[in-house]
């Protein structure tokens, strides 16, 4: 910071997007301030999922040797649930492999702190308990940020990168997007349940240090959403995610949904005897490709959740990818000493060519269907479970009769044509 409170760039939010952007710029020789509202990076985080190796490995090679990670993910599970039964698919890979693994569970309160310390090592000035509430404009250009009254609360820079999360007050202030509508965000509620490592490994059939990620559908009363269980070193992250507007229609409290999920016969044995350590809730961007706003304006870019660059269940890695490209765009602008929208548009162009936007685009085909088609999260999971329960139940009745009944149930409740249409409209849900 110079005497006038100026940096080359200011990044707001020390999450994966912000820290990556700050790190990238600092490595390119820029003077960067990274401002975090929490007491430490990760303090405000709720994430309890998988951190994929890509693109973090590009930023910090061999990060798995030093980063605080929980378990390497070798088991991908997907469960289709009804009220009291569940069909579980498990795909196991990397089981006998060696590091590096494709993904790791992480507790972001620890990980973000570590990650931000890497940015500090690269020369970034990290300030915590720094609550930025506005951008400073001059001649239609973003020139800084403000954290309270008076000049002492103002910082200036050629460039501001807002990575301040899903509610991104700064992106809204800059006119790049609106505050999230209930159709654009899901509410995630999560409990961390403490269990001994051995119990986790026994319950999920894992070797020491290995982990499972499990996504479920059919636990949200037909509404868009699902449940999850992730294995940490000594705890499980258990939660339910539901589109906010659908939760409002459901007229249920989020914790009631979570309690139902935890009490489900397919989930309860995993967490039995565990001690609930913390409970938290957070909004998750669910705006789809069409919801992604313009990512830049004069003197400013937005990245990560702030730009809705999240595609459940991926988010942290997408945030890092966007932070990295924002950082690269910043270096390009610095080289040309031009931070105008025209120069910064290279960021959006690079994003369009990236995995992030391409993947969001692919998934977007199913977004409308998931939003409006109640069969997907209600009827289908129920029907699959109902048919399996009937067919697998041995009671003297011939299987031929049961198969016939299954077929007519399917025909009555859905029909082949409609099922094909639903399958096509949700093809973006394919992993």
């Amino acid at each position, binding site marked *: *910071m110079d005497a006038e*409170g100026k940096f080359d760039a200011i990044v707001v939010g020390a999450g994966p997007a912000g820290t990556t952007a700050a790190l990238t710029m600092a490595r390119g020789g820029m003077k960067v*301030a990274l*401002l975090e509202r929490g007491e430490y990076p990760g303090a405000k985080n709720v994430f309890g999922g998988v951190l994929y190796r890509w693109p973090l490995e590009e930023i910090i090679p061999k990060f798995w040797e030093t980063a605080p990670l929980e378990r390497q993910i070798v088991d991908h599970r997907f469960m289709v649930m009804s009220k009291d039964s569940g069909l579980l698919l498990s795909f196991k890979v990397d089981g006998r492999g060696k590091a590096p693994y494709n993904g790791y569970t992480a507790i972001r309160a620890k990980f973000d702190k570590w990650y931000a310390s890497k940015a500090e090592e690269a020369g970034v*000035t*990290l*300030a*915590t*308990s*720094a609550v*930025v509430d506005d951008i400073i404009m001059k001649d239609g250009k973003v020139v800084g*940020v403000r*954290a*309270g009254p*008076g000049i*002492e*609360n*103002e*910082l200036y820079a050629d460039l501001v990168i807002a990575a301040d999360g899903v509610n991104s007050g700064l992106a809204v202030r800059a006119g790049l997007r609106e505050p999230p509508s209930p159709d654009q965000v899901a509410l995630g509620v999560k409990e961390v349940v403490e269990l001994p490592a051995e119990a986790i490994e026994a319950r999920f059939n894992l070797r020491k240090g290995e982990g499972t990620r499990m996504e479920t559908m059919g636990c949200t009363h037909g509404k868009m959403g699902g449940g999850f269980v992730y294995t940490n070193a000594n705890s499980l992250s258990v939660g339910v995610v539901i589109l906010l507007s659908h939760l409002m229609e459901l007229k249920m409290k989020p914790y009631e949904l979570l309690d139902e999920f935890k009490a489900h016969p397919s989930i309860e044995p995993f967490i039995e005897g565990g001690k609930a350590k913390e409970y938290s809730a957070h909004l998750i961007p669910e705006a789809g490709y069409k919801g992604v706003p313009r990512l830049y304006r004069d003197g400013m870019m937005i990245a990560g959740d702030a730009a809705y660059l999240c595609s459940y269940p991926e988010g942290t890695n997408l945030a890092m990818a966007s932070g990295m490209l924002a950082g690269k765009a910043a270096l390009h602008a610095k080289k040309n000493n031009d931070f105008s929208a025209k120069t910064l548009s290279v960021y959006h162009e690079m994003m369009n060519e990236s995995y992030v936007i391409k993947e969001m685009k692919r998934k977007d085909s199913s977004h409308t269907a998931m939003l409006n088609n109640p069969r997907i999260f209600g009827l289908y999971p129920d029907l699959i479970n109902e048919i399996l329960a009937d067919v697998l139940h041995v009671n003297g009745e011939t299987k031929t009769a049961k198969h016939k009944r299954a077929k007519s149930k399917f025909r009555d409740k859905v029909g082949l044509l409609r099922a094909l249409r639903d399958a096509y409209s949700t093809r973006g849900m394919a992993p």
Partner: protein
Amino acid sequence: MVNSVVCVKQVPDVAELRIDPMTHNVIREGVPSILNPDDRIGIEEAVRIKEKHGGRITVLSMGPPQAKAALFECLTMGADNAILLSDRAFAAADTLATAYTLARAIKKYRNDFDLIICGRRAIDAETGQTGIQIAEQLDIPHVAYVKNVELFPEQRKVVVKREVEDHIETIEAPLPILLGVMEGLNKPRLATLREIIRSKNKEIKVVNVVELGGDLNLYGLKGSPTWVAKVYPPPPKAGGIIKSGGTRETVTELVKILVEKKLIN
């Protein structure tokens, strides 16, 4: 110019403290640490004095390495540098040993002080003795329970208002002096963005027992004549008596009870 030393303590957030029902010990694990509230008032007062008269503010604390967080907070409020006295040898100190340690550090590192400010008391043990004992060890005057401070650096004096039971005393005293400050003196500020950033470059010096020197028998547990017989939660309050009915009857009954209990004649 007024050079001040502010003594602070990182304390557990008592709002989050629990007592183990079996052992009656305070459960410290998992309780967040904060800057002691009265000490925050001390920092604020020192910064205000500095803004008015100039000078330098050193924050001093004794505690484990994580107490750096509390010291950093003091720096973001406007203190210039910080010293953390951290060593196993300092552990389990009572107020006497703590005062010895802090006084020794003040003599060694900031003997040019005009003013020492301490919070009235720490919210964890609430003894309110350390500040006074520092003054005694340094052989300087002190005033406790200070709610107003006016400095006259040219005349080398201070006029303070001190709150006692039922009145307020106005005291004029010479510098250097130690003041024990309390709630009501000021409203501590929020750190500004630029001061947070500037504080990244301010020094937090960590000092161990070897560097501090002194008599090893006067530090920590060895130097602490106080012993704790027992820690226990206060007994829960018994439920009160609630009388209902008309005003006349209830008041008559109330008076009867008070007379019976010999609380009124």
